[in-house]
């Protein structure tokens, strides 16, 4: 039993290494073109957050729309530490993660204590994003309407003001870590508990699962990662601003997670790559023609995927694979 688990982890680890190496090879292939790097960096940023969302949303089935709140908190914690006390972002990003996790606890504890779920949990979390945004707009000592530009000269490691490729490779490592965390969680007791909560909360409760604690743990892991990685939004933009409490990010993350297929480890990430690059592609091709037309297509694509492939994009990918790789699969079976 133990050894099979080890083998499974080893197997997954190899997949993750392959993914990371594959991702690491992309920039040289694209000759470090700044535009591609920036697009890829943003995609990776989303991929990491979606992958973190997967723990609470995919495994635990909680409709969390709070990603915008956690990214915002990450940005503001990191930025404020840097601006006020000149604490380098290397520390700041993790502080951001901690603050986000603490905030997740403050919100999650009563929410789960009072049995908030389904659409109500979703609404509460997205309302929080708006609350924080307005709160930081009013709180002029830290936020306010004025964007606060992060100090440091270009290329400074201390201020983490670096070419995109650095961010990109940091995020590749982050993605590998978060994917591995997904694997670990999925195979741990927490993972089983989360799955049982998703399937049937009452039944899980009866089987002795501490539903509240399980959800809370899932939420805090997710909040920590989102807060930490969310700081990169500020680092790349070069400023902190209340608009970084962005409900669009919340919706985007949830949609990518849902469309990717709940509970699977890799498909949300793959979906993020496909959909985000498709969206960027549509923007460049159609954006200058009629404003908004590319987003009409994007919205339609989302709807079509959900309507016709309810199990998510992973189902399509598997089908595509099955068609292409049918032969080789069969051969292996014969052996």
């Amino acid at each position, binding site marked *: 039993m133990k050894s099979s688990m080890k083998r499974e982890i080893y197997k997954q680890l190899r997949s993750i290494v392959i993914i990371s190496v594959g991702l690491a090879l992309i920039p040289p292939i694209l000759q470090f073109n700044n535009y591609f790097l920036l697009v890829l960096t943003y995609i990776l940023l989303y991929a990491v957050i979606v992958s973190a969302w997967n723990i609470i949303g995919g495994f635990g089935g909680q409709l969390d729309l709070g990603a915008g709140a956690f990214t915002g908190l990450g940005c503001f914690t990191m930025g404020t530490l840097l601006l006020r006390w000149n604490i380098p972002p290397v520390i700041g990003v993790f502080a951001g993660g901690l603050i986000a996790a603490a905030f997740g606890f403050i*919100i999650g504890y009563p929410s789960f204590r009072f049995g908030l779920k389904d659409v109500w949990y979703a609404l509460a979390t997205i*309302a929080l994003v708006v609350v924080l945004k307005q*709160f930081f707009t009013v709180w002029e000592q830290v936020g306010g309407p004025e964007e606060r530009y992060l100090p440091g000269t270009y290329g400074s490691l201390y201020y983490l003001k670096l070419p995109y490729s650095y961010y990109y490779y940091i995020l590749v490592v982050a993605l590998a870590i978060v994917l591995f965390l997904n694997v670990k969680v999925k195979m741990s007791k927490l993972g089983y508990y989360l799955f049982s909560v998703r399937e049937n909360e009452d039944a899980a409760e009866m089987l002795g699962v501490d539903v509240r604690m399980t959800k809370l743990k899932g939420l805090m892991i997710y909040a920590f990662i989102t807060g930490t990685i969310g700081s990169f939004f500020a680092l790349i933009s070069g400023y902190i601003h209340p608009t970084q409490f962005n*409900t669009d990010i919340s919706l985007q993350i949830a949609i990518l997670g849902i469309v990717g297929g709940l509970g699977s480890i890799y498909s949300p990430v793959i979906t993020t790559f496909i959909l985000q690059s498709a969206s960027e592609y549509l923007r460049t091709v159609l954006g200058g023609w*009629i404003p908004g037309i590319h987003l009409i297509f994007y919205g339609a694509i*989302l709807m079509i995927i*959900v309507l016709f492939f*309810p199990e998510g994009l992973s189902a399509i990918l598997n089908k595509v694979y099955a068609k292409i790789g049918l032969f080789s699969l069969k051969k292996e079976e014969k052996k």
Partner: protein
Amino acid sequence: MSLELFIQNLINGTLLGFVYSLVALGLALQFGVMDIINFGHGEFVMVAMYLTFWISLFLAIPGSATVVLTAPIFFVFGIIIYKLVIDKVIEAQPLSQIAVTIGLLILLRNFALAAWHAEPKGLQYQVLVGGFKVGDYVISISRLATAIVSLVVLIVLHLILTKTYFGIAIRATSDDKVAAALLGVNVKKMYTLVFGLGCAIIAIAASFIMTFQQVEPMSGMTWGLLSWVIVAMGGLGGLSGVLAAGLIVGIAQGIEITFWDPRASLAIVYLLFILLLWFKPKGLFGKR
């Protein structure tokens, strides 16, 4: 802070509350009966506002009078949306419903942008101009009209739901759709009609919003989440809950702006909403 201002803003908040409840009413009906989580509600309001604008412009009739046309048109619009989209996710899990309606939200918002451009569009007052004075206080006529319409719609809807066979069937379907189907209720047809009816109410609300607001492709953002908050606060099933919740939200905003910063007026409402969800998870007047 003077007492007069406080009372005046109480009045303003109350009148605004009626508008809010009217906007949320369609959503409350749809969600209450069908359990469909429609995140595109605000965008429906936005499209209905555009419809009001264009009809009012082309026929040269006051915005509020376009109801006669917009409500039926939106009823049909609702049915089409139901058949094309909602019907396919009505049995699906909430996550899928949210994903598909967010897709719809993106689509509608940008369709409005592509088709009608980004400039805000508004209607001049033709009727219902100005306000009248009661002592030191001013009551806006157009808001008062909205409040009255809101009440009338609420009462009519209540009567439909309790006094007509169709209404009883709606409530029965909302209670137990399998049992209703076994008794001969065509549940899909019922859903179609309810969705259409909800959209018709949205159209009524939109035509009155147009008396004081302008419409632009992003207008839905203001109304979508707010409507959901009101529905959640009001609790399900009860329509009076929607009215009460709308009033609470409107008055809370009015008071907040009187005493503090308008920039945080929504934050206060949403905080109130979160606290309420914690301590009264079934909403203020929840039956279930």
